[in-house]
């Protein structure tokens, strides 16, 4: 069984934000919600690095652990999804998440946030696969169609890799050997534990 993971190759990411656009387009994400974002460290100075980050679909997901209504679940592919019918918009998953993945359509007085929205690895939600209901709430379900997330498929430099963790790691290892650099599996230790 595959264990889906994201990996962003910082040596390749050129901060074009195509993944962000692809995600918004594919999933019809509401205004103000960004399931994916590109962050540049040391912007404008030598050695700057860009990273595309979204939900990393953690092995022991902190969001799921703190959710008061227990609306998170992990699929057989290791994708962390949530049920918007149960979500009460309390904001706890946003406090717990290391990657700042959970997003809210609102952020207003008296803690009004609306239902949480986050990257689904383009795997929809708990409703019937590729139903209108699923699309409205969670966006596209490309995984059910045998496709990978739109962000990674769209990446022009193939910096953003998505798919089975072992295959992603093999591709990245090959690249690292060829360019004789140091490997940097950004965020993996945080998301998938020290052993990866």
């Amino acid at each position: 069984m595959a264990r889906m993971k994201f990996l962003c190759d910082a040596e390749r990411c050129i901060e074009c934000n195509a993944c962000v656009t692809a995600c918004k387009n594919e999933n019809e994400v509401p205004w103000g919600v960004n399931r994916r974002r590109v962050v540049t460290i040391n912007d404008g100075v030598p050695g700057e690095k860009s990273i595309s980050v979204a939900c990393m679909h953690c092995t022991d997901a902190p969001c799921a652990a703190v959710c008061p209504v227990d609306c998170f679940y992990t699929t057989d592919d290791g994708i962390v999804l949530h049920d918007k019918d149960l979500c009460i918009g309390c904001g706890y998953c946003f406090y717990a998440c290391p990657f700042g993945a959970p997003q809210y359509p609102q952020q207003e007085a008296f803690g009004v946030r609306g239902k949480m929205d986050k990257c689904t690895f383009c795997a929809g939600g708990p409703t019937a696969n590729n139903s209108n209901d699923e699309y409205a709430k969670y966006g596209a379900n490309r995984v059910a169609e045998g496709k990978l997330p739109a962000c990674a498929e769209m990446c022009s430099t193939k910096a953003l890799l998505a798919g089975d963790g072992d295959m992603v790691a093999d591709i990245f290892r090959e690249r690292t050997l060829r360019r004789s650099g140091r490997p940097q599996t950004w965020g993996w230790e945080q998301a998938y534990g020290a052993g990866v």
Partner: protein
Amino acid sequence: MKKQGDAKARAKRVHVKIMLWSILLIAVGAMVAPLSGYLFVELASAQGSSFEEVNPRSETTWRSVREGVSGITTVQSPEAGVLIHNGGENWRQIRNGLVANVMPWVLAAAVIAITLAYLIGGRNRLDHRPTGQVVLRWKLWERVLHWTTATLFIVLSITGLSLLFGRAVLIPILGPAGFAAYAEVAMMSHNYSGPFFAACVAAMALAWVWHNVPNKTDWEWFKAGGGIFGGKHPSAGRMNGGEKVWFWFVVLVGGIVCITGVVLNFPIWGQTREIMQQASLVHAVAAILWIGLFLGHAYIGTAGTEGAIDGMATGYVSVEWAKQHHDLWYEDVKDQAIDASEAGVKSGVAVSQRDKPA
């Protein structure tokens, strides 16, 4: 022939000389040349860009990322530039571990303490039957303030505890969908009534602070254990030592609960996640301590002390109750004592009839 030999020997000496000087030059050069690196570094730093700056080690970058440094991003939301925020995992461990596992025992301890007080100490009864004379203890606005705060407190307690412990306790009973529907209502009630409750607490603090300044009488009251463990009932003014402790607990610990609650309730002032995490932990711990002490307050004010509820229910207490529990205050107000029928209450009389032996 000899001349030729001299010339040959001279040429040989020149060769040796050149050779020795060359070796010396190489030896000195070999020692000095590496030192020119210092000169290079001095020059480079004088130009304002060090080797480290031109060729940064990527490990430094990734270390700073793991430590939560903020980068540049086009996404406009708070802390969007932070790639890894480590505080969340700490918050999770403390909330799900320490708070969720230890704090229920605080509530259990409060319930056990009250049960023991009732079983061992028994109800604090009036020494003398009420004669029907009553005296005003709480004015109407004080009672309205008290009961408004109390109602909001109970709503906030139940909804707050539901959000912290509901996943463990209520989901097995109500099911995921049932609990989620309740939790949404609970969260909204909690969030909307919270600020009004905080205003009530502030109003109570202002209204009653002058009656709750600690004095020497309170010290004597505490030394006598508040009269719980038998013996003569210690002297007290309008507020006894125990009531003052409750007042200051409400003002200080309750104030912390209210302030952290407002911080959590209005995520529009640019609070960082770290502030929200800390606020939520402090809020939960302080609020549960408050609920624990509240249980004691509710017991003493109702079942624990005969006649005490009349004061907050009708405003009037029987003269006998005032004399027994707040003798110094009674001395001040005894000339204001009126007949129960005149005050339109049945408190003093009702209690005496209810407790009359059959």
